[in-house]
């Protein structure tokens, strides 16, 4: 092989690699494995979602919230999920964490153990319309007037963060907490927490 041929081959290889590198690829990855995630953020990852949910559900069960309530009132407690508070610097975080936690709690408990009241404003507006239609006879109604659930507890998510940077590194310590508040007495019945710290590095070209 001549020198020219070797160089030409090198150039073609180089161009090939360049073109391949420009293509868009998407790969399905395990949400539990954030080590495989090419994103270099110090913010929340999908694995945190799973870890935090498992931790809080385990704490909720360990505290025997449902058993204690049923022993007292002979009925399952009603929990209303209220507006979460996001004091991190990452938007779109609270909703997914809260949805996941409630879905897991519903999945891992029986309706005889705990009941949930849906308080999202759009759902509340639809329920109000539906109830009105039933009252006026526009829609069918079951026997006996039923009313909306009054909550025994509020479940509130609160995410806080301590974010610091020295220009080269960004560090975020995120505290995920879920608290259960007695709606009669404002007693904090339960507070589940999980703490995750991450550090990411920025190249000098971006400082």
């Amino acid at each position, binding site marked *: 092989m001549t020198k020219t041929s070797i160089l030409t081959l090198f150039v073609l290889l180089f161009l090939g690699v360049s073109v391949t590198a420009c293509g868009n690829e998407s790969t399905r990855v395990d949400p539990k494995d954030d080590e495989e995630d090419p*994103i270099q953020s110090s913010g929340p990852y999908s694995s945190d979602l799973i870890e935090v949910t498992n931790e809080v559900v385990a704490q909720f069960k360990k505290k025997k919230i449902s058993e204690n309530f049923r022993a007292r009132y002979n009925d399952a407690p009603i929990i209303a999920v209220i507006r979460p508070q996001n004091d991190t610097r990452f938007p779109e975080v609270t909703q997914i964490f809260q949805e996941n936690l409630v879905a897991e709690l519903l999945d891992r408990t029986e309706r005889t153990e705990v009941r949930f009241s849906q308080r999202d404003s759009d759902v509340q507006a639809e329920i109000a319309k539906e109830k009105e239609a039933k009252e006026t006879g526009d829609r069918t109604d079951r026997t006996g007037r039923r009313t909306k659930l009054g909550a025994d507890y509020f479940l509130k998510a609160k995410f806080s963060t301590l974010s610091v940077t020295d220009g080269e590194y960004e560090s975020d310590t995120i505290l995920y907490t879920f608290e259960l508040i007695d709606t009669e007495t404002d007693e904090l019945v339960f507070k589940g927490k999980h703490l995750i710290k991450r550090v990411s590095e920025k190249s000098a070209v971006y*400082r």
Partner: protein
Amino acid sequence: MKWLISFALPLLVLTGCAGATYNVAESMRKGGYKQVLEDTRNIEEFPERDQTLILNWRAHAKMGLGYQESARNDYLRAWNMMNNSAGGNVAAAYAWNEKSKYYMGEPYERMMNSYYLGLLYYMHKKPEDAMACFRNALFVDTGDLEANEYSADFVPNMIMRSRVYMDRGDEDGMKTQLEELARLPHDERNFDSNCPWFTVQAQKDANTLIWVELGWGPYMTAEGRHGEVRVIREAEYSERYAEVFVDGQSLGRTYKLGDTYFQATTRGGRPMDEYLKAKGIAKDVTTVAGAAAIGVGIELARSGNETAGAITAGVGVGLLLYGLLSSAEADTRCNVLLPGQIHLMMANVPPGKHEVEVRYFDSNSREIGNMRQRALPLLVPERGDGMLVVRSDPHYKIPLNEKERAENPYAKSPKLR
């Protein structure tokens, strides 16, 4: 000769990647926000290194045309790149041209992206997502506090955080935020400290915020022998303040609360500035050394040392090409669609639908007639804030209702692909 082309081609490919790909200022001159929207429909057609900047431009264009929900999606996509990514093409930025790197924005640009995303979340009744964005805006506007570096001083962001605290019913949070605002140095280049809405009571009394944006944000030029010195320039515009009318009644003149040129120029230098200066010197040295090595190589070949001559000349060609093709020019890409100044009007307006008029004035308090905006729709809810973001552009559109706000900007334009 063939092997010379073989060497030169990859270098040309690399350096050829570094040019500007979209002239948004030209598009704005040609057809305003509509032109920008049309040009940027397919973001994937642009090089990856510019996509985040173009997403920000498209978001501004969508906001200017009233497509607020779609604008929010673009700001969020850009936000993820600017805050969750490690960037890209870093090696090429060092070796060849700084413009090769993926744009992630200077601190003030990252701050403004977060601020706009927060405003849109707030207007779309997602106050907690808004709060996160405003917090991030503070974070990216803050340097290494242990090293006594820059602390956040963008007042519109602080006012918006106060509004979210109030929405939460957290008066202590609002008070703490306003105290932080009160500790800022009173620098007229940054904000007007006579603004009457920096107290807890004033915040509680108001239920309407009208953010009025004036002029254009800073732009950057590459100066020096090799363009290695990046200079931040202030855009020229004549509007200096505005007067706001609701249902024909004047609420008074606006107060300046933010200045993007001030924000851009108060974060000190960057490590890359020193590197580019050194690279400019290295570029001169390698060009001269390369030319000299080629000469020596030719002489060696003439005197019978053909192999040594070829190697020396080859090294010379490599050095010469690197010197000629690499660039020490600073990256001047920036978000030129940002406003120059951000003003505020706060008031207590009865709940319901209202019409807003904004008049703009120059430094001599003369109205700039062709900028007047009439019949801007304002909806003040029973609970929470009525809010408008307007710009000193008579074509700036405020969506009339939820449907318009959520419309797909490309749904009604068959001209677009």
